[in-house]
């Protein structure tokens, strides 16, 4: 019996020795490798059809366009200086005389014109009662029908004011300047011929405005309005030092409705921040461009291509480009022509900067730090579960531009890449240009330690990018064809702490 009890006790001891602990899940770390991306980023995707364009040969270029125009030229004024007082009128005698009517030094010569406004005044005084007919005709001033201006005595000796609006001066397409008016006086009376029967006065001193003017100018200036063309590109700091553009072009297409050839004077000005640079618009000989005159049927078209100085202007990477102090001058070289008051001069201009560059090793910094908001859930995950992270990247660069990108992470937007105190940590990644290799480059790894990851437990993190370009071997051209891309493959590596499942 004792043996039985001993056996039973032994069995109970064995069984009771089995301690089964309460289920509880421990914490452990595991490594996740998550393919992140495998894409080709084509240069052509950068083209926005506004400022970045691809030409027919797939060459990228920067383009900006603007417009320039003058206001309507308006009326052309002349300033007459015609004064004739108390000239005797003889009965039975028809006489004709010419009289200068233009004041000197007006800088223009009228040959033909349609009066928009103006007047002429005449008076017949001391008229003999026996007078039968008394009238004055001015042959160069006529109605649309061609009938000359006639001023008749109608029994009153008061001044007669004639509104000249609608009257024409001179003959269309006349080859002669109109500087004198021909006055013809007709007088009849019952008195014998040559008997003075009246005194005639004629005055034209007020300006006469022409809505149509034909003639020539010695120097007539038409100012253009302001024109500003913006370039929607945010240039990083230092880009003008790191990249040198090889050439730039300004093309101006001018539509001139005036019947005068003009000289075009203006300046191209680029502005970036406080920096301003200005170049005159001149032809290859350093002369001002002259633009074609319009005709009665169609405007004159001029296409101006400017090379000189534009490269210097565009090298500053302007944010705005404008043509300033633009004006069109009709001068003695313009010859005779016609203009209407509604005539204008319009210009469309285009600045083209081909991506034909020389690249230097110079730091380029994006000016503003990017704010990254980290939501609470992700902050908790990073804090509790993310022990480390890394990025394995492999790139294939088919573009002759390479360099190293630096990402500066900090707790404030005031990140100064030269001041290590202003940021928490920096990570860099180098991408060699296609001049070095167009094959897949060796994979590179970016690792973030737990300490670095803890930065992302803050609600806001700031990131500032800086780049140092790989110096090019001479001039490089950036094309945007189907073979111009950067291939990028990357794998996200994360060490995850598993807990609280």
């Amino acid at each position, binding site marked *: *019996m004792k*043996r*039985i009890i001993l*056996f*039973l006790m032994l*069995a109970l001891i*064995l*069984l009771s*020795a*089995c*301690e*089964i*602990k*309460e*289920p*509880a*899940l*421990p*914490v*452990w*770390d*595991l*490594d*996740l*490798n*998550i*393919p*992140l*991306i*495998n*894409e080709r980023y084509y240069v052509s995707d950068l083209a926005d059809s506004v400022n970045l364009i691809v030409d027919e040969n797939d060459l990228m270029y920067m383009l900006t366009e603007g417009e320039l125009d003058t206001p309507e030229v308006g009326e052309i004024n002349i300033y007459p200086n015609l004064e004739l007082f108390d000239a005797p009128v003889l009965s039975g005698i028809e006489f004709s005389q010419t009289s200068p009517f233009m004041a000197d030094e007006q800088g223009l010569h009228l040959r033909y014109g349609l009066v928009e406004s103006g007047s002429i005044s005449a008076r017949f005084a001391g008229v003999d009662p026996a007078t039968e007919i008394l009238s004055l005709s001015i042959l160069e001033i006529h109605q649309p029908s061609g009938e000359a201006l006639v001023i008749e005595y109608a029994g009153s000796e008061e001044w007669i004011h004639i509104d000249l609006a609608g009257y024409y001066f001179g003959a269309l397409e006349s080859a002669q300047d109109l500087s004198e008016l021909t006055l013809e006086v007709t007088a009849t009376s019952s008195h014998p011929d040559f008997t003075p029967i009246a005194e005639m006065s004629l005055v034209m001193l007020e300006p006469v405005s022409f809505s149509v003017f034909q003639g020539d100018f010695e120097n007539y200036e038409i100012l253009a309005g302001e024109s500003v063309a913006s370039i929607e590109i945010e240039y990083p700091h230092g880009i003008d030092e790191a990249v040198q553009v090889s050439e730039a072009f300004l093309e101006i297409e001018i539509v001139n409705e005036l019947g005068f050839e003009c000289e075009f004077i203006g300046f191209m000005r680029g502005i970036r921040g406080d920096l301003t640079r200005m170049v005159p618009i001149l032809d290859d000989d350093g002369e001002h461009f002259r633009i074609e005159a319009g005709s009665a049927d169609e405007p004159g078209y001029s296409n101006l291509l400017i090379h000189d100085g534009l490269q210097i202007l565009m090298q500053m990477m302007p944010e705005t480009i404008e043509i300033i102090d633009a004006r069109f001058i009709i001068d003695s070289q313009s010859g005779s022509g016609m203009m209407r008051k509604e005539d204008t001069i319009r210009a469309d201009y285009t600045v083209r900067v081909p991506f034909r560059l020389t690249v230097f090793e110079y730091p380029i910094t994006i000016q503003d730090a990017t704010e990254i908001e980290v939501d609470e859930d992700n902050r908790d995950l990073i804090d509790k579960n993310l022990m480390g992270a890394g990025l*394995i990247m*492999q790139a294939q660069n088919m573009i002759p531009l390479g360099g190293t990108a630096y990402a500066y992470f900090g707790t404030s937007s005031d990140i100064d890449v030269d001041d290590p105190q202003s940021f928490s940590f920096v990570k860099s990644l180098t991408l060699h240009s296609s001049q070095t290799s167009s094959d897949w480059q060796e*994979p590179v790894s970016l690792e973030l330690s737990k300490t670095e990851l803890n930065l992302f437990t803050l609600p806001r993190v700031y990131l500032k990018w800086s780049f140092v370009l790989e110096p090019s071997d001479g001039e490089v051209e950036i094309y945007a064809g189907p073979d111009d891309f950067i291939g990028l*493959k*990357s*794998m*996200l590596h994360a060490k*995850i702490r598993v807990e609280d499942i």
Partner: protein
Amino acid sequence: MKKLIIFAAIVCCFASLGALSTARSIFFADSYMLRASGIEANYWNPAKLSRSSPKEIWVPLSDFGIFVANNSMNLDTYNFVVSRDTLQTADKERILRDMDGALRISGGGNMSLFGFSWGNQAISSSMNAYAKGAISEKFLRLALYGNLEDEYIFYESNNNASSIAFTDITYGMGDILIPWIPEDLPQVKAGFSASFLAGLYNVSTQDYEGYFTSDLDSGASFHQQINARVGLGGFGFKSMLGVHSEITDYLEAGITLDNIFGMISWQMHNELFGFYATADSVYAANVDEDIVDYDDFSEEIDSFSSSLAPELRMAVMYKHRYGSLSMDWVQGFRESSVTNATGRLSFGASVLPTPMIPLSLGVSLGSSRVPLKVSYGIGLRIKHTEFGMALQSFDSIIPGSSSKGVAFATSMRIGF
């Protein structure tokens, strides 16, 4: 998906029930062919149904056996894991070191419903349920280490599940003397049993394939496809032939062939469930897109049969006044829900320190597919009634924290 979860739950549920020939065999770690007598001989060797044996009845549910086991985790490891704050690499390796490709879990149970034996005949009924499943070690490595490798391929051999439950009504007859054996040689008796099987359910993985890859060039891809067949309500048959001989007063030997014509045909409701999910070349950058293609289906299918693979058993037993020693060799002819194709050897010992208190010990040697099993049992025998209980340890000599599984059995025999 919901159906799959239900399916998995059913498998896990029945994995905790028992499924053995009879509960009492647990007392001897399956070295039981020559120890079974009376009603139990119906299942172990009907040749041992003897006219000289007393009548015996089974009290319903009095014989009850249950086991659950796995191939890698023991209680020590479990306690170690749940007591750790953080699992280090060595700890993870400790969890994985015995998996040998997969975590395999099996469970089963058996219980008597009724039984009666008289002379050389017996009729009995029992209920059996058995389940096993496996999940690839690679899944667990993924969970513990993450995807350190570029490619993970999963095969059906390491990712599967099956379960079956059925009841039997068995009639057996034994003590049939085989003629023409010279009188100076030990006589050999034969017996047979036939079982009508009523199937409750059968669930089994039909097809499985899966992979998970991730690399820089192709991104992440995964594919999982599983088809499972479910049968509810069926009937079937199995039979057993056995021979037995008392070679000397101390030595017995026997051979049985079980599961002859063994099958269950599932008739009432049969369905095929399937689920697949696939994603190809996925990158986190485009994860917003509709990247996973998945679907599930279920369709009724024609009736099908679950075959019970034949199993050959040979045993010898040495008897002594104070006890006995036995040795059984069992060889299944192929894998099925209730059989293993890998042969196994088991030993049993019975000791009678007093006529009232039988003690038992059993050892079933392990193999590549079957763990070592060691049983300890104790009984109380009063006149014609015997009650006993036993505990079996898997992969450990002593039941305890090193065990990878445990079985428990109770048994009651009433003779008159």
